[in-house]
């Protein structure tokens, strides 16, 4: 099993954190993982993205060129990366922010109004977790079972009080359809 995941959106949407949670999820399940963020001034208000690979084989390049899974949270990133998604791959798009109709044979596109759902939950910053939850719904159930542990490892101590609400958002995404 190898999932090559690209998460992309604006800086401030929790792109890197979402990736980190996925990386720890891999580790918790004794898989090989790599996590490679974009970095630097593009994080000042610009776009941000992050590459995560989870695999049961040693990982070569940490760069995700053709993602099996694209989690995408703004229009420019969607336009940029949609064409790269591997055959049979998934796109998890925040449809509150990306109102483009698009489909391609062999690619599953999931439209989730994540930002709107998150706002309704009281914190628009949870959109990333909602999308992540949806992605978990396409994976082996062991991942959903261990996501709490992964989150505990990825949330910094000072923000641990947000663990529950994050889990709730994941569940909301997991159950959305």
């Amino acid at each position: 099993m190898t999932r090559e995941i690209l998460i992309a959106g604006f800086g401030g949407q929790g792109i890197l954190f979402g990736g980190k949670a996925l990386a720890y999820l891999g580790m918790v399940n004794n898989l090989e993982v790599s996590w490679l963020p974009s970095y630097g001034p593009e994080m000042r208000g610009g776009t941000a993205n992050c590459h995560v690979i989870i695999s049961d084989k040693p990982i070569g390049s940490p760069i995700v060129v053709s993602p099996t899974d694209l989690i995408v949270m703004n229009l420019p990133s969607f336009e940029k990366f949609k064409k790269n998604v591997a055959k049979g791959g998934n796109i998890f798009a925040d449809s509150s922010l990306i109102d483009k109709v698009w489909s391609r044979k062999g690619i599953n596109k999931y439209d989730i109004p994540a930002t709107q759902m998150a706002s309704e939950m009281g914190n628009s910053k949870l959109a990333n977790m909602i999308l992540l939850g949806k992605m978990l719904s396409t994976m082996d159930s062991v991942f959903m079972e261990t996501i709490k542990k992964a989150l505990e490892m990825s949330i910094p101590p000072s923000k641990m009080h947000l663990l529950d609400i994050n889990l709730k958002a994941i569940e909301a995404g997991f159950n959305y359809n």
Partner: protein
Amino acid sequence: MKGNEAIAEAAIRANCKHFFGYPITPQTEISAYMAKRMPRIGGVFLQAESEVAAINMVYGAAGAGVRVMTSSSSPGISLKAEGISYIAGADLPCVIVNIVRGGPGLGGIQPAQSDYFQAVKGAGHGDYKMIVLAPSSVQEVVDCTFDAFDLADKYRVPVMILGDGMLGQMMEPVVFPEKSPKCEQKDWATCGTKNKRKPNIINSLYIEPQDLERLIIARQQRYNAIAEKEVRFEKENIEDADIVLVAYGTTARIVKAAYEKARKNGIKAGIIRPITLWPFPEKIIAETAQRAKAIVCVEMSMGQMVEDVRLATGGACPVGFYGRAGGMVPEPEAIYDVIRRYV
């Protein structure tokens, strides 16, 4: 753990209790980590006012006999050039990390390997060398960091760990070896005579050319010993290979994908991955050049290591090159295409 953090943690475990740095992307995590940990273990983390100051603090601390490290990225390393030359000239051990970004100038902040020449041929003035280690995974970052401190102390030379933005930012699981670091007795260090011995002097000035030459020749002999004993590389399937790929650092990981594809398609490919860039693994390359149809060097630069590859082959086989620049990362497909050109 992130590559940058892994360097920091490994250094601390290798008994490096002194770190002097100056912030620069993409290696700020090293400083951030040191800033958190050092005060907890009675070590010193100091953010210098500049890279120039940082490398000179390293000089002072190394001269005072402690294990010491600094880290930076390309423009910052250029600023350290004089200091590095001084450290080499005064025969001091230290570890310098360069998490390379695109250049020249301010360039970009994406990963690159365009500081190979600077690291290997000598950014600074004068006849000197640094040992240069180029890990290609976060685990190897850890191993190289331990190695770096031991080599530095053993040969009294500066050792550079050459990574790139990708390696520094990347997170992979790591295991820290249970090693107790070798700590050499440093009789030559300046830490006060305690009125018990003659003063020690840390110095690189020799006004009499005879004296300076004698010293340089003695140092060269040490370099020769290093070149003989400390070459590190990894090879894969080169014994029967027609096309041997040479790449270091994260580029080697990408090359591997191309190599696998080639093997899958029946092309006899192999890989040599230099881990020490100086001393360069020239012997294995020279031998390979006798057997192989071609050697293809892949770099994130316009072609720097390829010169050392060519030197090593001595014309025995054609040497191809594929490079990307400015923060662009080679893609396995493109490398594969180059391989096919040489079959």
